[in-house]
């Protein structure tokens, strides 16, 4: 589960940050010592990833000694081939992608609909109370309700990826509804009212006006949903009973004993499980960072 969800006043970081000057105050000279320190610090992020790549390219015979910093000789893709087969990577990828897709779409649709209903009927007690009821989920961590949940999902036949996706949606509901309601309150009613005068139904107002206006918030919700679902280990490992329907992170744990000291296979497997999210992030990073930073409530 994602542990930290940034919720901050809306600021377009990508635009605002470069305009700032802090320690180089009064001069336009870049602060080279600080840059150097940051580059050294960035090794803390880069080295574990390089080790992963490095180990995955070794042969089993070379990897077995467990030395992380010797270069592969010869280069070998054997680890990838074996990891692909052993963990049935395509199936794991498909299941992770399925859960993530359902969670992303479900979180955006269900939360935005609920937020719209709540904000437009705030004068009604039922909607106000529903809001606080949904918000209560922020105080209920998954471990608290996990045991009965696992029993219930088993009874109703949801001890599978669909059940996992539903739980991802539910546990993000409070946060997402909060984001959407905050954003909706800042949208003026006049547009909506003129649409209604022209005879638009509530459904048309939502689909043609509100939902498109919510796009930036939907992007933020979608990014969090993607990261939360794609990387989650706790829920799929407890909810899904059939090991053949497990997600990529859970597969890495299930195959720990089979990986054993075949570090090249293990790391090739880790790399294949990590890579999709990293590639998506690198390709869309400007968008992702502003989405992550974009926040809930205008103070």
């Amino acid at each position, binding site marked *: 589960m994602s542990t930290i969800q940034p919720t901050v006043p809306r600021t377009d970081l990508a635009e605002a940050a470069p305009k700032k000057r802090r320690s180089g105050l009064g001069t336009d000279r870049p602060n080279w010592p600080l840059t150097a320190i940051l580059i050294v610090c960035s090794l803390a992020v880069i080295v574990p990833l390089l080790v992963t790549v490095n180990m995955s390219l070794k042969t089993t015979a070379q990897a077995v000694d467990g030395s992380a910093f010797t270069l592969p000789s010869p280069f070998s893709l054997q680890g990838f081939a074996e990891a692909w087969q052993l963990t049935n990577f395509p199936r794991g990828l498909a299941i992770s992608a399925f859960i993530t897709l359902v969670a992303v779409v479900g979180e955006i649709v269900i939360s935005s609909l*609920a937020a719209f209903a709540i904000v437009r009927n705030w004068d009604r007690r039922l909607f106000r109370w529903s809001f606080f009821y949904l918000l209560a989920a922020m105080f209920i961590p998954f471990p608290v309700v996990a045991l009965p949940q696992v029993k219930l999902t088993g009874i109703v036949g949801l001890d599978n990826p669909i059940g996992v996706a539903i739980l991802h949606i539910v546990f993000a509901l409070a946060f997402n509804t909060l984001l959407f309601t905050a954003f909706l309150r800042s949208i003026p009613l006049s547009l909506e009212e003129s649409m209604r005068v022209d005879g638009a139904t509530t459904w048309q107002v939502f689909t043609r006006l509100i939902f498109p206006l919510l796009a930036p918030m939907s992007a933020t919700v979608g990014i969090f949903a993607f990261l939360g679902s794609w990387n989650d280990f706790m829920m799929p490992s407890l909810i899904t009973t059939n090991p053949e329907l497990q997600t*990529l992170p859970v597969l890495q744990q299930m195959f720990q004993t089979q990986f054993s000291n075949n570090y090249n296979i293990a790391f090739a497997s880790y790399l294949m499980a990590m890579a999709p999210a990293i590639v998506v992030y690198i390709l869309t990073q400007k968008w992702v960072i502003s989405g992550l930073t974009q926040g809930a409530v205008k103070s």
Partner: protein
Amino acid sequence: MSVQTSTAGRRRESRAPATARSAAPASAARRRRRVDPIYYAFLFPALAVFTLAITLPAVIGFFYSFTNSVGFGDFEFIGLRNYIALFRDPNILQAYLFTLGFALVTVILANVLAFALAVALTSRIRFRTTLRTIFVIPMVISGIIIAFVFKFLFANSLPAAGQALGIGVLSESILANENLAWIGIVIVTAWSTIPGAMLIYIAGLVTIPDELYEAAAIDGASGWQRLQRITLPMVSGFILINTILGFKGYLNAYDVIVGLTDGGPGTATTSIAMSIFKGFTGGDYGYQMANAAVFFVITVILAGIQLRLTAGKASFGA
């Protein structure tokens, strides 16, 4: 469940007037308006999944916390005996102590580093975009997978370095040492959660007007004084929210620990979540539900503190 039935009731009573309403001018309709029934349909999915997936299990779990259920078959009510036993159970106490201590150390370490990185990344440096891209990467990597990578480093590379440098403590895996294993967990957890906190701090830092720093510079304030007198007070709300969010998150620690130590050596790094999940296999379902209820109370207390402290400041979520 009661919310849903009242939804259905309201839906019936308000159907007829709502159709008339769309013809009326919007402002008049808003004064004594009827709710368009479709709004109930909009709200219903959220309430339904929430009630079935959270409220219902929470109620069931609370019920079982007063029983001696092993997860199936017959059970009896045993009153508060589970709760009393919890406070005398050394394993449970250790899990709470470990988790609270771990959360405290991690929240301090992660926030200090995240804040320092945020200040540095909003300074006048080269390669800003590239560096920021790199520092956010841990956020997109699964906690358990990076834990496996670090487990390898802790088990192989660190001891090799320790032996080469002649440092006795480091010459074997710190994860196998029951007094040191928690350090590995703190490092990996901080590694993967720093970016989230860092982005919040960056968002806070960019809202500080440049003029403040310029004025301070003219007055001859040193870099350290500017940090102390301007930056820290201006982002105090962000520090607060990061601390509370982080602490609440770390209390749920599970993925990284499963990857690194699986609660060991022995039970030295068993977190609260892990101890609750033993209810699946340990034949003490009712007992662990009492554990979950206690954990819930702690979370609610933290949430109460959060609402108290952040009320009045910008209304943050989560």
